């Protein structure tokens, strides 16, 4: 009776792959996206919107180099401003990609197969966008290589006790490992494109990228072993990266920053915002490319559940942050909380509470979790909410610290906004180029998954 009732009220979850989808379907549909002679019209429209923003990024960067960081709103006491908030936001977005590709692989969550490429690529470009900001914020960006320990003429070395140097190592390692993971995972798919390419140029280009992959048993064995090892290495790496980012803050004796909760708080927020971006990318892409049989509503629902779970962790961190401010009886921390909720930047606080804590609760409802439109809207709101949260963390702690005579306000300039918009444009354009020229779904992993699901490894394929 109970089971009958539950079956009646809760519709069964969608399958990982729509029934009747074969290995051949996956290969054909995914490679058709890349090998089509012309991109669809919306692709050109989207690229035409993103490209001017990349130009804007170029102009904003050039003007920054000419005039210095005074063109931004950064001024004592808020010397970090948008640049560092954007850095934290972007690099956090990347973390969900690593989570999906590495951690879910290690946990044998086979549903990841159709969205891991999409998410890994998001990681790669998000880390690129993130990396731009600390360098631009240096003031003299052309000296960024001073962070590298090399035997310089001046006989000085980086200060290895500084979180800023840790950051440099963490982010560059993260980018390198993400790139290796992404590329190694893609080699078999590049071979598929090589073998299916219609033109000689495409065959040569994909042939070079595929490095001579032949899919031999030896190749697969080593490939699988290394892929799992990379996943094992990337999993602690992703936690370390955002922990190090949070230590940029927590190392400082500033109210609201100097707290042990910051590393887990930042990591949870990072994964949370990353899943939001995965949803805002996956929902339109599966529709536009007709991949709804491969990226099913099951994937969206699973992402939504992870979004909900990380959202609750983030909410818990918000609560603990403010509880500790009260419980510690530290007047500066208490003043910070009051200033955050009722000071000049109070709207930011209330907006991010609504976006990050309230909106996500809608995902408790199965109907919402299975509705692509709602997931897209919720994902977009969380993206905005997480960006505002990062800005709030940077500004509110800095603008009023211990001595009222040192207080001041931060007002972003047009160049702050231009640089932010420019990186969004860069991300969008890079992503559009990726979906045009590289496989959006891991075809060989999907083929393996479909063959495994069928129970008997691969039946009729001579059709």
């Amino acid at each position: 009776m109970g089971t009958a009732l539950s079956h009646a009220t809760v519709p069964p979850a969608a399958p990982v792959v729509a029934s009747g989808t074969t290995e051949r379907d996956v290969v054909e549909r995914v490679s058709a996206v890349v090998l089509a002679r012309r991109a669809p019209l919306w692709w050109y429209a989207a690229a035409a919107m993103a490209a001017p923003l990349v130009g804007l990024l170029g102009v904003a960067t050039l003007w920054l180099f000419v005039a210095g960081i005074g063109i931004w709103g950064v001024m004592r006491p808020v010397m970090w401003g948008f640049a560092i908030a954007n850095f934290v936001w972007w690099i956090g977005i990347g973390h969900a990609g690593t989570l999906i590709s590495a951690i879910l692989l290690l946990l044998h969550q086979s549903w990841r197969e159709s969205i891991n490429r999409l998410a890994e690529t998001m990681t790669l470009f998000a880390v690129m966008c993130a990396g731009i900001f600390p360098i631009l914020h240096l003031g003299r960006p052309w000296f960024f290589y001073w962070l590298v320990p090399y035997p310089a003429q001046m006989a000085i070395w980086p200060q290895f006790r500084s979180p800023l140097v840790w950051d440099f190592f963490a982010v560059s390692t993260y980018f390198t490992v993400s790139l290796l993971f992404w590329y190694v995972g893609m080699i078999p798919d590049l071979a598929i494109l090589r073998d299916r390419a219609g033109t000689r140029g495409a065959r040569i280009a994909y042939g070079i990228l595929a490095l001579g992959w032949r899919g031999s048993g030896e190749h697969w064995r080593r490939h699988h072993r290394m892929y799992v090892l990379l996943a094992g290495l990337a999993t602690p790496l992703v936690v370390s990266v955002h922990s190090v980012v949070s230590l940029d803050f927590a190392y400082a004796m500033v109210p609201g920053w100097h707290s042990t909760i910051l590393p887990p708080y930042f990591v949870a927020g990072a994964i949370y915002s990353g899943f939001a971006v995965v949803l805002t990318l996956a929902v339109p892409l599966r529709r536009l490319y007709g991949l709804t049989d491969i990226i099913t509503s099951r994937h969206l629902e699973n992402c939504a559940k992870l979004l909900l779970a990380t959202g609750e962790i983030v909410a818990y961190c918000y609560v603990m942050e403010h509880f500790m401010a009260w419980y510690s009886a530290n007047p500066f921390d208490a003043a910070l909380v009051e200033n955050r909720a009722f000071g000049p930047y109070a709207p930011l606080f209330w907006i991010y509470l609504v976006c990050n804590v309230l909106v996500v609760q809608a995902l408790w409802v199965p109907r919402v979790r299975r509705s692509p439109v709602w997931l897209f809207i919720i994902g977009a709101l969380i993206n905005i909410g997480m960006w505002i949260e990062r800005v709030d963390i940077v500004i509110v702690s800095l603008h009023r610290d211990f001595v009222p005579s040192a207080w001041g306000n931060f007002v972003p300039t047009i160049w702050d906004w231009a640089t932010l918009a420019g990186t969004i444009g860069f991300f969008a354009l890079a992503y559009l180029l990726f979906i045009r020229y590289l496989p959006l779904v891991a075809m060989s992993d999907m083929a393996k998954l479909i063959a495994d699901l069928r129970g008997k490894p691969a039946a009729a394929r001579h059709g």
Partner: protein
Amino acid sequence: MMWGLLASFDDAAALARAAFHLREAGYRRFDTYTPYPLDEPADVPGTPRSHIASVVFAAAIAGAIGGYAMQWYLMVVAYPINVGGRPLHSWPAFIPITFELMVLTASVAGVVTLLARNGFPRLHHPLFAVPGFERASQDGFLLAVEATDPMFSPLPTRRTLEQSGAREIYEVDGA
């Protein structure tokens, strides 16, 4: 000069049976070519173990020791900065970079090993010249016996492949 023989099979199960059959018959220098990894039996005799894991482990240790030693040398010996008499060898502050360098060296060493052991990049290969080999990446289940196998002899090997259930058999010309 013949490189070997390439045979196609109906599906992964038929291919796995054929590989087992060939191994029983004493062949060693042959390999399967498939669009996705086959579920292989736990230990097929004669299968060489992959060394990637040991290389990654060694590189991780080397990266961690090297990273820590670099920081110790630079902060304690080469460029000591006395900040209010705090110890120069402040080891907790050296851990994050030690960890990052461990992961970095392990990953790079592993991928380099993967490419080197697979002989990548290798854009020309006798197998690529066989018409139909491009199906190996999409929906073909192929097996190639190399001419360098001591057991290899064109006609008997062809017969063994036929008996193993091969659908089509091609000669592969050497470079």
